[in-house]
């Protein structure tokens, strides 16, 4: 009503076109190149083949793929289980404490990501403090190491993604009406029952967001397994980078990236779908109040 169609188009085109050119087309290119032949000089050769996907059939790759899915899943579970009590505490605290805690949680993550991972490398280092403590406690042998295995990758993954789980959980819990739990208890349900059947369904949106922002990025981890993982902690992201930068085989790297795209797109579509229903409720509310 305020703007004519042409004006709307003019406002839409810049970002729309930008994302088509620098996001959609490049993603399609990845999928296309995964079906091309490799070029000896590290470029893209002529002709089409499924050779790029040959990696996927090897046992050593399946081990890495399984580890990637497994570590991402365990990370997500840990983040939910550890993040939940923190989020509940925050949501129930006074507003001042809420703001303070939010700031305290966010600040460490404003330091450079690589530096945080490096800090864990120092802590877990064979000469480091934690190793000595563990050795004195008799938990590991003297020549044992805390670094370069699946557990060290898992630890740093949880460290990195925990705040991303806490924030959506906190937002959902803050909106949750705790009187519902009291009502459930008054009506005779036990604490466990009311937690699983009243509380968790009530904050399901927050749980879904938390899973999305932890699980999907974790699937594409590169830096963490690269720095604290060693050969025994490699994940899909390391394999992609290795194919691109060391073997210089772009079709093989693309094939692995295509695999990752497939893994991501499925929950992604679900997410977009939910966002849209969210959008609709917002629109509906606006309409009711006569704003649109």
């Amino acid at each position, binding site marked *: 009503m*305020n703007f004519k169609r042409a004006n*709307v188009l003019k*406002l*839409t085109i*810049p*970002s*729309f076109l*930008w*994302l*088509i050119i*620098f*996001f*959609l087309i*490049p*993603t399609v*290119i*990845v999928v296309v*190149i995964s079906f091309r032949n490799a070029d000896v000089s590290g470029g*893209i050769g002529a002709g089409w083949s499924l050779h790029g996907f040959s990696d996927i059939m090897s046992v050593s790759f399946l081990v890495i793929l399984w580890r990637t899915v497994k570590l991402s899943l365990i990370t997500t579970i840990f983040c939910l289980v*550890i993040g939940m009590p*923190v989020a*509940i*505490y925050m949501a*129930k605290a006074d507003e001042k404490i809420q703001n303070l805690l939010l*700031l305290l*949680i966010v*600040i*460490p993550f*404003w*330091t*450079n*990501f*690589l*530096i*945080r991972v*490096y*800090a864990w490398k*120092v*802590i877990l*280092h064979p*000469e*480091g*403090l934690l190793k000595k403590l563990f050795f004195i406690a008799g938990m590991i042998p003297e020549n044992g190491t805390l670094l370069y295995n699946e557990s060290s990758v898992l630890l740093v993954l949880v*460290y990195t993604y*925990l705040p991303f789980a806490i924030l959506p959980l906190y937002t959902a819990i803050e909106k949750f009406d705790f009187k519902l739990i009291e009502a459930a208890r008054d009506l005779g349900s036990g604490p466990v029952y009311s937690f699983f059947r009243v509380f968790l369904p009530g904050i399901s949106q927050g749980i879904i967001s938390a899973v999305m922002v932890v699980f999907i*990025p974790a*699937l*594409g981890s590169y830096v963490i397994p690269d*720095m604290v993982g060693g050969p025994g902690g490699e994940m899909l992201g390391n394999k992609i*980078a290795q194919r*691109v930068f060391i073997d210089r085989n772009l079709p093989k790297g*693309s094939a692995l*990236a295509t695999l*990752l*795209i497939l893994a*991501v797109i499925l929950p*992604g579509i679900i*997410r977009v779908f939910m*966002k*849209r229903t969210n959008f609709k409720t917002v629109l509906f509310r606006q309409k009711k109040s006569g704003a649109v």
Partner: protein
Amino acid sequence: MKKNKFIFIVTILVLMFFYLPIIVLVVNSFNSSRFGSVWGGFSFKWYEKLFSDRNIWQSVKNTLIVAGVSTSVSMVLGTLSGYVLFRYKTGIQKAHNVLITIPLIIPDILMGMSLLLFFIALKIKLSLFTVVLGHITFCLSYVTVTVLARLQDFDFNIVEAAQDLGASAGDILKKIYLPLLAPGLISGGMLALTLSLDDFIITFFTAGPGSSTLPLQIYSMIKFGTPPVINALSTLFLLITFLIALIYQRINTRRT
């Protein structure tokens, strides 16, 4: 009451977990020993080494250029897209919304990889310019979402009232949209700036020779260089972060 105590203890433990690596770094930045486990006495030598390292300062310059340009461009693009996404619900806007949302959730490595192949396919030489293009792409989505969130409580009746009273489009933009959207714009811009300054993976895939940013420099120092200098660098980072957090908090509290 017992339950409250439990969640309190978990919260404290989690905060300790969050700050442990950071404390270790700060302490070690003043440790003259090369190894983090041995205290070799207090010293400023890593800070001296840091300030005499020219590669680091070149990469700081590159980082600031990339962050400055990509933040400004993504703020303009993101404000436009946030506005049209909020006001119009046509089919094109639905597609637009999907294009904005997906980059928020895909792993960085996918965006880096796809941009690299895109530049290779078009035979564009990797440089600081290609890094900026990548950064604008991921910042755009974050700015849009922030602006969109701010628009949720924007009262469009004001705009209509202004029009009825004969205000021109320019006046409406200057006197209504900009002042009311400024907080959303600022937080979107801050978010874009933080993400751009911190990004490693997308830069790693799209940077050419001579266009090393600070995260790339830090990566190569961790892999091949002198780690204690990184401790000094990260302590400085932390100081700057605290200052920015403080300013940011001020802006936020003044608004509410």
